[in-house]
């Protein structure tokens, strides 16, 4: 976009950040990407008991062009992965991805030829939600955490700085396999 990218760091930028964050997190519109069992739990999340309409998400947009959140609910097979990417590409910015369930996060119990071992192989993921399937309460929790994250997203210069910092941190951090001896 235009103006906010060019603002210098300062009060104006932070205020604008807060405003954008508040607006964007107020009501996500999820795109329907229910694949398997998690899709059913996602439907109950939109259903009366765990009503997602309380925070503006009862409208699951069928068209990705009108959505800003993609909840990948279920196992992504090799055949489905290009479709997933295409739907993600069709969503306009700003957009977020929530990987619901273990199959979407890491491939889950299906560590085999047919399942993509985590949708982060295909799209960038903002929130991972484990569970098989996660209860609707867990999805609510993930959604709230995502809202917090979006609420506090830096923009413009702050975003560039934050990205650089994160990259530096991740370059220096030990890999998972190296983190031994944690139980002592």
């Amino acid at each position, binding site marked *: 976009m235009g103006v906010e990218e060019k603002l210098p760091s300062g009060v104006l930028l932070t205020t604008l950040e807060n405003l954008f964050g508040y607006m964007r997190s107020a009501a996500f519109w999820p795109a329907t990407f229910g694949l398997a069992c998690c899709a059913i739990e996602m439907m109950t999340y939109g259903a*009366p008991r765990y009503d997602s309409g309380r925070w503006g998400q009862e409208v699951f947009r069928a068209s990705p062009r009108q959505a800003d959140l993609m909840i990948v609910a279920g196992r992504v*097979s090799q055949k489905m992965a290009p479709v997933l990417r295409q739907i993600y590409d069709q969503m306009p910015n700003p957009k977020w991805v929530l990987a619901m369930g273990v199959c979407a996060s890491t491939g889950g119990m299906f560590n085999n030829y047919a399942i993509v071992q985590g949708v982060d192989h295909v799209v960038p993921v903002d929130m991972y939600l484990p569970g098989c*399937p996660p209860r609707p309460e867990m999805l609510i929790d993930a959604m709230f955490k995502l809202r917090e994250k979006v609420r506090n997203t830096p923009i413009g210069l702050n975003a560039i700085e934050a990205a650089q910092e994160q990259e530096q941190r991740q370059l220096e951090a030990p890999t998972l396999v190296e983190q031994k001896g944690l139980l002592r």
Partner: protein
Amino acid sequence: MSTTDTTDEATEQDPFAAGGDAAEGHVYTVTGQDWDSLVSEQAERGDERIVVNMGPQHPSTHGVLRLILELEGESVTEARCGIGYLHTGIEKNMEFRNWTQGVTFCTRMDYLAPLHNETTYCLGVERLLDIEAEIPEKASVLRVLMLELNRISSHLVCIATGGMEIGALTVMTIGFREREKVLDAFELITGLRMNHAYIRPGGVAQDLPDKALDFVKDLVVWMKKHLPEYAAFCNENPVFKARLSGVGHLDLAGCLALGITGPPLRATGYDWDLRKKQPYCGYETYDFEVQTWDTMDAYGRFRIRLNEMWQSLTIIEQCVERLEKMRGAPIMIADKKIAWPAQLSIGSDGMGNSNEYIKHIMGQSMEALIHHFKLVTEGFRVPPGQAYIPIESPRGELGAHVVSDGGTRPFRAHFRDPSFTNLQAMPVMCEGAMVSDVVVAVASLDPVMGGVDR
């Protein structure tokens, strides 16, 4: 030049392959432009027939189903299904796990009726083990109870999503509201809302908790009060009837040729229900009626599903009566070399092995410890052979063809899934109809893509 000619020519090798290349004819790309420009483009080109791709991501195709429709105006001249978007390789995965662990895999195939998947698999394994006669009666009654509760929850989802797909959103909200109660019952008895690995070879995993029967009785009362709402909403609703009557017509010969079972078959008037014809788990001792309808269309299938829910409630009441008299009866086979060990109970951190059981295996019985160890690490061995025991799932005949080579793992476990077979009827039902009827026809078949693709 119409799209059909080039399509045929380019795909003569593979008529089912994705035919969306630009080389095969003009591709109209919808990018959010004004719809009129698309229509006028088509009018200019004079293309009579257009190949439209619905899905795999689509709110109305009941999951990741790809419908490839060739349209002439609003009518469908040819229709094909593209499936495989949810293929998980569950059957191959089961070949690398124990027989008991196989239950947790097969339960995720048809994810709206997980207990049915488990049951057909366990029945096959039990037949190979030759322990069919030794399954305790309480385990069979519990299986029937859970199967019927699952039938209710599955039919509710079918009705709810079917209603949503044709635009009746209230049906969806009330459907899911009812279903929550059933899921509560599942959670109380099995510990999970969905994909419970509850039915295991030899019996069931856990006994009923104390309040369970009262809960189920309350559930039945609640259902009886609320199920008439669906009938009130839909049965005589003129819009609903107009959308569903006469749509998705499939007569008996068509059903048998295409291998269709379940509500679509019973909508032709033929009362084929495996619970009556080839009973399992003691179904012959329960008093219920097979529901049929005679209009062979989507409306008939809807009415059958509603009526089947009422019959399920009857069966559940009978199960509860029997279970009241069976308190304390065993729920797993007596043979300790096969019975899954470890009775679970609610521990301080949620769930875990019951303390009495641990005292027993650690302090009282060496054999019990050995059995526990062998079963949990290696699993039991099943004699070589093959078995196929189909059951009546909410969608039709669900059967597991289980092959054993004498080992601790299934050599091959293939599931004959009703959704996979029923979906073959989609072209027959849709060609000649309108696009809106395609949605209704597919919804009336009630395919669950997890079962279709496995």
